[in-house]
Each structure stands twice: as C-alpha cells, then as structure tokens.
C-alpha cells in the first residue's frame, strides 16, 4: 500500500511573498488545481466572520428606505478576530453561547449642511468593544447615508457569526484568486534568425514587460515570466514575423500564485489558516460519519443474517 501512496503529492509547499494588514500573496506549489481551487472556495464562502444580520429601525426619516439601510449596514465589515469564540444561530445549543453583538445608531441632522452618517457613528456593544466596524487609515469611516436638516435615523442592529455561503456580507475576502505560474521557453536558435530590430519589435509586442534584450549577448531573455497575462500577443507576433514556434508558453499545473485580499474583518494570514482549519474539519467530519455509517451498515447486515 505504501508504494501506491507515494504517487500522491501530499506535501504542498507554501512560500509567502508579502503580508500586510489587508492582503497577502503566496506561491503554492507541489500540489494541483483541485487543492488550489478548494482553498479559494473555502476562503470565499466558508471562513466565518461577524456581520450585522438583524436591524430594528425605530425612526427613519432619511431618503433611504429601511431595507436599503439594513442592507448597507450588513455589508459593513466588522473586526472579527474573536469570531472563533462566537456561535452562529445554527450551531448554538447552549443558552450561554455567545451569538449576538448589539450596535446602536442614533443620529439627527440639526445643522444646515448635509450630514454624513458613517460607520464611526455606530455605538458598539459595551460588552464586546473589540467587535466594531473596521477603520481606514484616514479614519473617515464608511458612508451609510446622508442626512438633510431635521432628518433622523435611530436603530438597533444585531451582528452574528456567519459564512459567505449564506450571504456574501460574511465573506472575509474582497477578492481572492490564484494564477497559474507561466513557464516560458524561447527557441533561441530560431530567435537568432531575427534581426535586432525584429527582436525588439517582438519584445515590444507583449503588452506586459515579460521579455528583455540582453545588451551584451543581444539575446532575448525572459525578464519576468509572471508578468505574462496569457494574452498570446507575442505568439501572434511570432507568427506575423513568419517564425511560429519562437516561444513556447505553458501554464504550470502544480504551481499557483495566490492572492488574498481581506475586507478588514480578518487578517489575511488568519483567513488562510482558518480556511485550512475549515477544510480539516470537513474531512474530519466526513471520516467520522463514514465510521458511524459503516457500523450501522454492519449492524443491519448482521440483523439480516440472523
């Protein structure tokens, strides 16, 4: 059995290229598309965050209707570093489970100028002060609605834990994507049949800076393979110059450039680790239910025999 299992590649490599407060980029290699895609899907729709889910409006004399405001509130990213301590209404069993965070918003425009109601005006739950709308470096807050003189908004909002599969407001990522690592081979023998001008012309045909001309050897080199956008321009140009096969470009099926851009609810590295935890839990649960299923089948079969 051991020999068979060697055929799987079960030790993917991760190389973290950059990590900031809102995004991270890493190269995932020694694995395959199905794993990369599972990861991408898990980041988008399975990693839990906190978002406003229930809004009770007492007064709303703004130009936006109640539902519209409730929807806008739901989309505000909330700092979800403590999401692991929370339970969603679907998983909660005990009475003392922490499921809700309450917010209040009570604003009235008294001045003559238009007033902006932003996420900074939201009053946080005193029991959970660390669950709050995310802040931007300038501290301007996220605009919810604008008020004219004498317009008023008074509401209570309840935030809950949830996942992106239920509603996109719970998705911790703004975008996450992966790109296949390009593999570029230049046919140098064929390249040498081109004049220097033609070489430069061919290099310039690529809309992104992928190739360069070595000033000493006068050879065309790959400067940055990752800049290649799979646009096929340089291949078309080679054909136009009457030299098909000048360059050979492949998408590597075992190496991916991953980018995770957070909404601010969770740190990008936390999204990756929590995503992997979700996948681990899924497989763990499946193994467990396979065991119980096998046992109940065996019991049934035993019952039939006797």
């Amino acid at each position, binding site marked *: 059995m051991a020999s068979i299992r060697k055929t*799987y590649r079960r030790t993917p490599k*991760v190389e973290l290229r*950059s990590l900031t407060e809102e995004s991270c980029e890493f190269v995932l290699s020694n694995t395959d598309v199905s794993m990369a895609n599972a990861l991408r*899907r898990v980041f988008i729709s399975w990693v839990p965050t906190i978002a406003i889910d229930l809004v009770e409006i007492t007064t709303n004399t703004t130009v936006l209707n109640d539902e519209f405001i409730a929807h806008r509130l739901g989309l505000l990213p909330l700092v979800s570093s403590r999401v692991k301590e929370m339970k969603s209404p679907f998983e909660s069993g005990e009475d003392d489970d922490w499921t809700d965070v309450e917010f209040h918003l009570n604003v009235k425009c008294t001045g003559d100028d238009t007033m902006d109601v932003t996420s900074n005006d939201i009053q946080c739950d005193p029991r959970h002060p660390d669950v709050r709308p995310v802040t931007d470096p300038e501290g301007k807050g996220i605009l919810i609605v604008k008020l004219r003189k004498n317009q008023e908004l008074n509401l209570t909002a309840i935030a809950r834990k949830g996942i992106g599969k239920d509603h996109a407001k719970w998705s911790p990522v703004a975008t996450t994507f992966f790109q296949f690592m390009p593999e570029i081979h230049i046919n140098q023998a064929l390249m040498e049949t081109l004049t220097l001008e033609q070489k430069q012309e061919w290099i310039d045909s690529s809309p992104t800076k992928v190739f360069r001309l070595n000033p000493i050897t006068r050879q065309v080199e790959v400067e940055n393979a990752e800049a290649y956008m799979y646009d096929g321009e340089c291949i078309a140009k080679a054909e136009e110059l009457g030299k098909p096969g000048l360059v050979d470009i492949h998408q590597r099926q075992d190496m991916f450039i991953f980018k995770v851009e957070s909404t601010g609810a969770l740190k990008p590295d936390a999204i990756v680790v929590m995503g*992997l935890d979700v996948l681990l839990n899924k497989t763990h649960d499946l193994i467990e239910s396979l065991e119980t299923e096998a046992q109940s089948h065996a019991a049934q079969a035993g019952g039939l025999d006797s």
Partner: protein
Amino acid sequence: MTQERKAPLPKSETSLTYAIEDEDHTLGNSLRFLLNKNPHVDFVGYSIGHPSEHRVQFRIQTTGEITATEALRQACRDLKQICAHMKQTMAEEVERVKSGAADMQS
C-alpha cells in the same frame, strides 16, 4: 504468483454511491481528484443534482482489492494530511515574514 489469490470483494462493497450532505465542490472536487489518483479505484465521479440542493452525490467503483468505503476513507485521510501540512508550512512562513519585517524595522 506466490501470493495467494483472495476472493474478490462483493460488488455491493466495491461500487457504492454516497450522498454527502451540506457539502459542495470544495470537498467534492478535491476528494474526486485524490480518489482518481488511487490505482485501486476504477471509477469515481461526483455530481450536485441541483444548485440549490446542498448535497454531493459521490460514486466510487474500485477494482476489487479494497472497498469503496476504504478508498473514500483513504482520500479523506490524504486530504487531511495535505491540509495539516499546508497549515504548518503557512504558519512557518508567516512567522518568517513577520520576523523579517521586524528585522527591517530595527
């Protein structure tokens, strides 16, 4: 062949369809991929009957050496191992990058 030939497993155990509730392509496609890599698996495929139906139907047919359940269990264990390994390497990388950033500042 020195090895004694074992009686083939009954068909009822080597070709099965599983219904996995509350799952989607995330788990379905990765498991299908891993099962496809298993040389004891003859056929594997999955389908989600309808987009609003949160159930994955999983078909496994083995060559007869192992049961379908055993094949699925192996695939689950492999996926678990892959995830655990990725989690560990990711944690190491985050540590490395963070300490690197700290060095730059000091």
